[in-house]
């Protein structure tokens, strides 16, 4: 990028060509007033406040839409400019009902700031009158309030909705005098195409759009801002929790421009999903179940009891009769402490967590192919990809902020988007090509794409030769896998497969983005290996904007894996079966460790049935709703001899517990999360915990200590220091270093800058390894009795088992309950109308849930979100496992559906 030199207010400045004067000035610390500029949207130029004088140019020029030029001399303030600004502000104030006294935005209002700066008089051109009150598009919204009396019609919200979120919900409506922000036909916001990202509220420079739940909960100037990492999904958005110190409550949530990875953008969960923190349903005291009923207990009673019971069970049945579930919701520090507790204090490797249920196949597959199992590239690199191949990821719903990057790449930078998904997900409207493969046929599809790439000589032979091994075996496996053959299996037309292969292979840099549509199969590892094959075949590895990018589900599922909450590896993916490594950890932890791999999540539940597991210690997980084949899982939870659950709510799982230990949520704890792009980021406490709730690591340390294995840390920073000392990929991590923008692993030492993309020049395992992958059909194909294929998945508005999201009024309004998606033709045949209650049945169970009749799903397929305790989809799912990764096949089982009998 060429640099140009100019002067602004006499200051010599260099800026990249194409930078606007306003941006160049801002970077140089000169704040040119503006009410309608935001770097994320195209210049609107509606407020005209940013006018400047450019030497040699007649009149004034707006600086938000004028780019810098060599030798330019700019004056941002003089008597004339100031006078115009004052006049414009006074004009705006004559339309804006000044109500700072009762406005939440008091203290964070740009108009207020500039009015003060220019001493603008709000009444000089007449005071704005209150308009007659009439309902508007947000009147009935639980999320947003829109006050047309305060709206200055700058256009930022409309432009954000159109250009950044691309939801196209908001528009300007009406002519001069009646002009307002609105929706099409003035329909209620929550029934429009709005996705409740809250971007409009965030970008509003005044108080015209407000977070409804926050109204009256504190003016911005009174609120304390705590920067932290979002506790919802794996994107790891940087948020600011705005807390009211007098109430110890989060009033509202915001973010800030320029932050990584979300640049101030949020999704509904981050913006409107934090009511759970201050919920009165939070656990505040330890509970011990006596005679089938929970009774409140003191901490010392509770931890004494847990330590005593666990010690007894070890004494009687040995350490391998205990298993622990760590948590992808908890911090790196919590996870490290938990697995250390299980391994060192208990003495078993029976530790796992819900990554087993989402990306175990990623970890297994990518480790085999490349040597490390994580997203190879970084989120922001997507923006510059030539081709993005999204397979089995409903990105805009499950990872909404990454969805923004993908949409931006397509719309602004012309990236070619290929979507492979059985459903017509939202990304399809941005895609060049949509392949609606039959669920469970991904290997067939990818093999055929590779068949085309090889037969049409679109492969990167140099890369294959220099950087990989076992190409021939793979080539042999796909030799006969023609697009025609794949078309029969997948139902995707052969020509589409060819086109997809060509687009993917020919683009400058192609990035594969996938998620649980790939992993949650009995062939999950195979699916992942196939994608790895595809990327290596075309040389899309070890370079920018390319790679194989699994989007991790929970906020810290990456970290929980990294920190060894897995039965086969210590922190940093160091094998428990490697004697040298075991010795290292024995040295570090001062305890003899088990040389054998432990068992996995679903295996734990099954082992209870065989009496092999006597006690389960579950930290922040909810298997009673999240595991497959719930009847079986719940039976295990019920029958296990001793169950400890550590959580923030009395979850479905906690109800089965013998002891419940109240812990704190992300907004109350310190530590770090590692997001999906391997970025370790700070978590900072914003509010005090409710009641006696304590940090997970503190509770675990206390139990361990009482069991005779003393564990204690002064603070979480010290835990991270210990992590760094035993975990090579985290070797350079410390709170100090991750403070501002985090640090991406591998980061082996204190001077290492972190790693933006993996496998540059060399794969972690040396050479990339191709695998010959044969197509294997799903475990339970449909048949006469169960003729439908049932898939489960996620919704934008909900998270995991809904324990947190369902506490939000805004979310409950748009996503009150679950449903089953069915194709209109199937529905018609079965006499099911949209909204009818249906019974969905599989060999494992039956649930009642309303039907959502939609053409977005294929004939013969059903789709159910899994978040809802009423009508829980996992009553139906199958617990057939991938043989390597032990991940259950949530995405395919055989089901039947009928209209539910009318209830009185």
């Amino acid at each position, binding site marked *: 990028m060429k640099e140009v030199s100019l002067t602004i207010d006499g200051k010599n400045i260099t800026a990249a060509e194409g930078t606007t004067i306003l941006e160049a000035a801002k970077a140089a610390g000169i704040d040119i007033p503006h009410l309608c500029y935001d770097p994320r949207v195209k210049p609107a130029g509606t407020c005209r406040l940013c006018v400047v004088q450019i030497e040699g140019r007649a009149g004034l020029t707006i600086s938000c839409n004028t780019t810098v030029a060599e030798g330019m001399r700019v004056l941002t303030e003089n008597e004339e400019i100031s006078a115009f600004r004052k006049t414009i502000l006074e004009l705006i104030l004559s339309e804006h009902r000044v109500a700072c006294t009762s406005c939440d935005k008091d203290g964070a209002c740009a108009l207020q700031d500039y009015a003060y700066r220019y001493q603008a008089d709000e009444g000089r051109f007449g005071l704005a009158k209150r308009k007659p009150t009439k309902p508007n598009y947000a009147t009935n919204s639980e999320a947003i309030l829109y006050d047309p009396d305060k709206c200055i019609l700058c256009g930022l919200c*409309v432009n954000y909705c*159109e250009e950044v979120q691309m939801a*196209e*919900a*908001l*528009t*300007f*409506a*009406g*002519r001069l005098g009646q002009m307002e922000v*609105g*929706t*099409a*036909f003035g329909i209620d916001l929550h029934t*429009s*195409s709005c996705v409740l990202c809250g971007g409009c509220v965030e970008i509003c420079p005044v108080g015209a759009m407000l977070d409804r739940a926050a109204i009256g909960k504190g003016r911005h100037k009174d609120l304390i801002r705590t920067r932290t990492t979002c506790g919802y999904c794996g994107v790891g958005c940087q948020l600011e929790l705005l807390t009211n110190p007098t109430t110890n409550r989060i009033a509202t949530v915001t973010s800030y421009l320029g932050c990584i990875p979300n640049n101030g953008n949020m999704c509904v969960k981050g913006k409107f999903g934090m009511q759970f923190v201050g919920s009165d349903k939070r656990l505040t005291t330890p509970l011990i179940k006596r005679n089938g009923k929970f009774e409140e207990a003191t901490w010392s009673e509770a931890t004494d009891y847990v330590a005593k019971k666990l010690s007894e069970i070890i004494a009687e049945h040995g350490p391998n009769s205990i298993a622990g579930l760590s948590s992808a919701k908890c911090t790196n520090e919590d996870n490290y402490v938990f697995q250390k507790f299980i391994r060192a204090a208990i003495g078993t490797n029976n530790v796992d967590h819900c990554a087993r249920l989402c990306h175990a196949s990623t970890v297994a597959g990518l480790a085999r192919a490349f040597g490390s199992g994580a997203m190879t590239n970084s989120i922001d690199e997507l923006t510059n990809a030539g081709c993005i191949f999204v397979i089995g990821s409903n990105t805009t719903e499950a990872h909404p902020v990454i969805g923004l990057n993908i949409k931006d790449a397509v719309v602004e930078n012309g990236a070619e988007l290929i979507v492979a998904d059985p459903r017509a997900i939202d990304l399809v409207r941005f895609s060049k090509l949509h392949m609606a493969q039959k669920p469970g046929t991904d290997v067939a599809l990818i093999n055929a794409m590779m068949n085309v790439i090889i037969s049409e000589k679109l492969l990167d032979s140099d890369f294959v030769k220099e950087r990989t091994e076992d190409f021939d075996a793979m080539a042999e496996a796909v030799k006969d896998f023609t697009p025609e053959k794949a078309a029969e299996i997948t139902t995707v037309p052969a020509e589409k497969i060819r086109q997809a292969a060509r687009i993917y292979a020919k683009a400058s840099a192609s990035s594969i983005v996938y998620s649980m549509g790939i992993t949650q199969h009995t062939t999950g590892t195979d699916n992942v290996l196939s994608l790895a094959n595809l990327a290596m075949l075309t040389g899309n590895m070890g370079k920018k904007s390319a790679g194989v990018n699994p989007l991790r589900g929970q906020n810290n599922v990456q970290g929980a894996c990294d920190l060894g909450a897995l039965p086969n590896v210590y922190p940093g993916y160091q094998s428990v079966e490697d004697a040298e490594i075991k010795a290292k950890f024995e040295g570090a932890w001062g305890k003899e460790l088990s040389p054998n791999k432990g068992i996995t999540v679903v295996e734990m539940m099954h082992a209870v049935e065989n009496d092999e597991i006597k006690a389960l210690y579950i930290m922040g997980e909810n298997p009673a709703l999240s595991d497959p084949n719930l009847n079986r899982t719940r039976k295990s939870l019920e029958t296990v001899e001793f169950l400890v659950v550590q959580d923030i709510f009395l979850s479905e799982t906690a109800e089965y517990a013998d002891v419940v230990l109240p812990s704190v949520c992300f907004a109350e704890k310190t530590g770090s999360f590692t997001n999906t792009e391997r970025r370790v980021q700070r978590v900072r406490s914003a509010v005090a915990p409710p009641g006696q709730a304590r940090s997970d690591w503190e509770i675990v340390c206390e139990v361990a200590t009482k069991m005779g294995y003393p564990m204690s840390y002064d603070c979480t920073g010290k835990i991270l220091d210990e992590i760094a000392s035993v975990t090579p990929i985290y070797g350079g991590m410390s709170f100090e270093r991750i403070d501002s923008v985090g640090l991406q692993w591998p980061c082996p030492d204190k001077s290492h800058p972190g790693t933006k993309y993996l496998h540059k020049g060399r794969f972690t395992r040396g050479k990339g390894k191709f695998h010959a992958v044969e197509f294997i059909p799903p475990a339970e194909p449909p048949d006469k009795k169960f003729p439908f294929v049932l898939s489960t998945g996620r919704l934008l508005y909900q998270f995991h088992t809904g324990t947190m999201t369902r506490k939000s009024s805004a979310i409950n309004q748009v996503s009150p309950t679950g449903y089953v998606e069915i194709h209109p033709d199937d529905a018609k045949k079965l006499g099911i109308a949209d909204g009818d209650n249906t019974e969905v049945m599989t060999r494992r169970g039956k649930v009642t849930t309303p039907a959502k009749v939609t053409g977005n799903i294929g004939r013969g397929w059903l789709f159910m979100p899994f978040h809802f305790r009423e009508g829980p989809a996992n009553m139906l799912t199958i617990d057939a496992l991938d043989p390597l990764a032990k991940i259950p096949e949530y995405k395919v089982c055989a089901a039947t559906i009928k209209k539910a009998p009318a209830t009185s």
Partner: protein
Amino acid sequence: MEKFGTARYQKMLNDIGELGVENLFGFLGKVQDTFGYVPREVIEDTARRTGLSPSRIYGALTSYRDFNLKLEGDG
């Protein structure tokens, strides 16, 4: 002015050939002139056909004095 009817609307669509962003404004003008307003179903239908969002078309039409979104006297 005619009463809005789907058959008449369909005929207008046929007359224009392929509806796209290039001729949408003129087409909506004809709908206005024929029926005296642009019904909601027309905005939704033309949005589908052109790939524009209903909110965009709706917002646009409300900026013109000579476009009505409701039949005169129809509240």
